[in-house]
């Protein structure tokens, strides 16, 4: 890689940064629906698994940032440097996992329960809206950041206020204590019916699947570290203004003490993002939603039976009823509203990130595509996935239920998370200069992550013959 000076890290620990996008992507159905549901079934002690999941994710985030800031390259480019088939593996997995409009369908389902608007109509309108917003935006990153951060801001403030009204200290204490009940697995969780659900929920703790990998693309677009040398993705109507994309990333002189000082500044910046914004906010939102779930469970034990016996697609409705019985109907409505918001936000963020990742890999590694502007390739993927999403919704219809789509996503998500932990160990220890490689503790955490994700996935397959749900 060519050597260039490392830019100076931002001086102030400013709250606005790419981590906000990751948080906005990460705080989704896992935090607001899947984990509260597990708490209703198995008690708050089951949340120790969530603590491990989110903590591993925070370290993973930090390590992805290490590669992106040091090189200005996406992690996909790093995978290609190791061995191109690894990168094509992630390209193919993304095509399998992220073309499904699962999040928006689940959100539209909740909206239908709340307002009566048919889910198919609102889901299709929501998908088209995503395409229109990005097409007309000047710089796509700015549009994504604005929309997602506004929605998450409203959700964080709203959930804090609503929980303040209906929750209580005892439930909060039980929730926090539950995070540290390491090793707690109730016998009923170790069954073919429920263990796959736990595996799926672990994959949905924090950013699931490839969202962490896409974070490296946001860092590049934000101009973090060596990403300052690479151009940004522009909206379709402004794509002509884009500067040409260089053929590779850059490296700084890791023997120069002055450059290493600047590097330390960047690692501090990312650490703040990973710990305060990502770990803190993700924890907070789930704690709030778990408090609400506990309240519901205590006041209405029938809900638990309904969830155990009922169809999965009925679970959202049952939980809304549970919340309604806990905090008056206020909570039932609030729950459905939040699910609708996170559903749309999830698809918006995922479709954008998917198109970034695929266009990044296609631009660099599919012969002949470099004569096109990368923004055009991005929009080909974006509108392609939107069109496909609409066809899927029309084809599956409301009877086949959106939850079926989420199940497929959760399985592949777990696998890809184990795989990227292995990839991170290789890129950061083989491709980066010695002075800026991860320490033994971070490496141990990432290795633990690989064992954690792949271990529970294959245990589920071998012991129960069941895929994650």
């Amino acid at each position, binding site marked *: 890689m060519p050597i260039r000076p490392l830019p100076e890290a931002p001086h102030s620990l400013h709250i606005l940064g790419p981590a906000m996008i990751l948080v906005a992507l990460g705080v989704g159905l896992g935090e607001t629906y899947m984990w509260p549901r597990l708490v209703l079934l198995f008690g708050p002690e089951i949340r120790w698994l969530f603590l491990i999941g989110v903590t591993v994710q925070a370290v993973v985030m930090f390590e992805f940032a290490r590669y992106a800031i040091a090189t200005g390259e996406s992690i996909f480019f790093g995978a290609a440097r190791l061995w191109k088939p690894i990168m094509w593996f992630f390209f193919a997995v993304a095509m399998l996992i992220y073309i499904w409009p699962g999040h928006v369908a689940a959100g539209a389902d909740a909206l239908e329960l709340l307002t009566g608007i048919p889910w198919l109509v609102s889901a299709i309108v929501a998908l088209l809206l995503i395409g229109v917003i990005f097409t007309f935006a000047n710089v796509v990153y700015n549009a994504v950041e604005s929309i997602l951060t506004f929605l998450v801001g409203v959700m964080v403030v709203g959930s*804090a206020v609503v929980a303040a009204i209906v929750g209580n200290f005892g439930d909060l204490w039980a929730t926090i204590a539950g995070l540290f009940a390491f090793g707690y697995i109730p016998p009923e969780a170790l069954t073919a019916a429920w263990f796959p659900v736990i595996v799926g929920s672990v994959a949905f703790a924090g950013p699931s699947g490839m969202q962490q990998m896409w974070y490296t693309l946001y860092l590049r677009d934000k101009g973090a570290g060596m990403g300052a040398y690479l151009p940004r993705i522009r909206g379709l109507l402004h794509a002509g203004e884009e500067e040409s994309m260089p053929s590779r990333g850059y490296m700084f002189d890791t023997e120069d003490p002055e450059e290493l000082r600047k590097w330390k500044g960047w690692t501090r910046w990312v650490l703040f993002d990973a710990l305060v914004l990502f770990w803190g906010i993700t924890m907070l939102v789930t704690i709030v939603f778990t408090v609400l779930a506990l309240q519901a469970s205590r006041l209405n034990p029938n809900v638990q039976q309904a969830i155990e016996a009922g169809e999965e697609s009925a679970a959202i409705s049952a939980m809304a009823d549970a919340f309604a019985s806990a905090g008056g109907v206020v909570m039932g*409505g609030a729950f459905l509203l939040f699910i609708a918001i996170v559903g749309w936000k999830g698809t918006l963020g995922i479709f954008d990130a998917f198109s970034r990742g695929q266009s990044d890999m296609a631009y660099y590694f599919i012969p002949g595509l470099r004569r096109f502007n990368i923004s055009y390739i991005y929009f080909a993927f974006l509108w392609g996935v939107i069109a496909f999403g609409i066809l899927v919704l029309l084809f599956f219809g409301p009877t086949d239920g959106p939850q079926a789509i989420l199940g497929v996503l959760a399985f592949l998500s777990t696998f890809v998370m184990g795989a990227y932990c292995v990839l991170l160990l290789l890129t950061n220890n083989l491709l980066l200069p010695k002075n800026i490689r991860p320490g033994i503790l971070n490496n141990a955490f990432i290795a633990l992550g690989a064992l954690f994700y792949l271990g529970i996935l294959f245990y589920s397959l071998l012991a129960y013959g069941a895929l994650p749900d």
Partner: protein
Amino acid sequence: MNATSVRLLAEVTFPGAVIGLGAGIVAGGVAAVAGLSPGYVVLTTLGLGLPLALFGAGYDLLLASGRIRLGGVTPAVLYWLPAFPLSRLVHEVLLDLGLGRGVALPEALLPFLAYQAILSAGFAIGFLWLHEHLGPLWWPRIRDHNPVAARYVSQYTRHAAAMERRKRERRKASETGR
């Protein structure tokens, strides 16, 4: 205090007050969607929204006086640590008054306050998050006549210009060296 100073003050405190009131509207809106009585909806919207709006304005005053820095997480969390529980206490009292139940502080006041204090961290981060979003849209509109807003804009602009300049220089260096 003359009319101009009142106007300047109102402008400076606008983002914080709007977010505080907005939080009350979210709570009231959820109550309305869920079909609670109009009295409950109004009391929740205003009873919680107004105290939060006042404290939100107070945050902006501290910001204007330079006692806390733009975008700082810790100062926001510390500020809302007492402010959020107090707002909730006012809300509970107003609900009791408004619904004719006779004022009774929540049972087990200390656990109530402790619970609200813990949740205040979440509210503070969400508040700051939205404030950092709304502020940069609002300050440029009033900077011509409002010196505090002009100061914020210059802070943001200096930061953005430094980032832009740095990026241009780096790109130039990379182009000449490629």
